[in-house]
């Protein structure tokens, strides 16, 4: 390939180097992209579900009777067990959790009666 006119051709070596450089650059990008968990593969699904249930139960103190409605739609493609515990009471929604389930918990105030609030623990287990 030789230059025959004023608007000439790109040197073949330069063109090949350019293609190689771009291929390498996009290859590196692809490798990095594959290693970054962007949605889809949540490393802590229980923590996410626990935060969602906790947000749905706000404002505090938590009324145990709203547990079922707060749990709805939190983890649509997984199995979910949500348990609320106080020193004297226990409320649970969902099937019993297997040992392999991912579990997260947070402390919440729980309304256990008329004008009676006690510290409790919201435990969320998620599995597939």
């Amino acid at each position, binding site marked *: 390939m030789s230059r025959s006119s004023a608007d000439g051709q790109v*040197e073949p070596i330069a063109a090949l180097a350019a293609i190689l450089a*771009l291929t390498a650059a996009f290859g590196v990008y692809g490798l990095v992209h594959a290693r970054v968990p962007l949605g889809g593969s949540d490393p*802590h699904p229980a923590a996410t579900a*626990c935060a969602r249930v906790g947000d749905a139960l706000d404002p505090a103190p938590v009324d145990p009777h709203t547990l079922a409605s707060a749990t709805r739609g939190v983890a649509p493609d997984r199995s979910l067990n949500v348990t609320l515990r106080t020193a004297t009471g226990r409320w649970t929604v969902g099937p019993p959790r297997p040992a392999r389930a991912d579990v997260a918990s947070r402390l919440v*105030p729980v309304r256990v009666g008329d004008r009676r609030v*006690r510290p409790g623990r919201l435990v969320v287990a998620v599995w597939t």
Partner: protein
Amino acid sequence: MNRGLSTVIDVAVCVLLVGGAVLALSSVVPDGGHGTPDARPAAAARAVLDSTATVAVGNETVHGTVATLLADAVVARGSPGDAPGYADRVRNATARRLANATRRASLTATWRPESPCHQVALAVGPRPPAGASVDAVTLSVPTANATACGRAPVHLTVRTWSR
């Protein structure tokens, strides 16, 4: 400009942009559940301070949240004419609520009023073990209308640790 030189610059700019994209992508850190849940002092503070208790004062009983009872008890103890035993009963009720929530938290109520009242500090719960990483949150309860000793608020501090 020479077409060959232009191509080199184009490719260099493109590789730079892709490099920037790689850096941006690798700086995405998934929001993992760092620390144990009990080590978050705000949740522990809400669970304990929003809980309610009933405490005897003389022949009557006072019902309220742990936060209001603690603030009330600290102001009562720091003021002249303190009802005997009230602050201790509030502290015992607080200790029960705290123990029901978690064993890895402590609570302090402090008040620094002007004279003739005096400074008060009430501590509830265990001490964090040596070397533990401790987180804390402090809430202010205003006392402006409750006392003749200035407008100093009561500070409620909740400390949590993971080990």
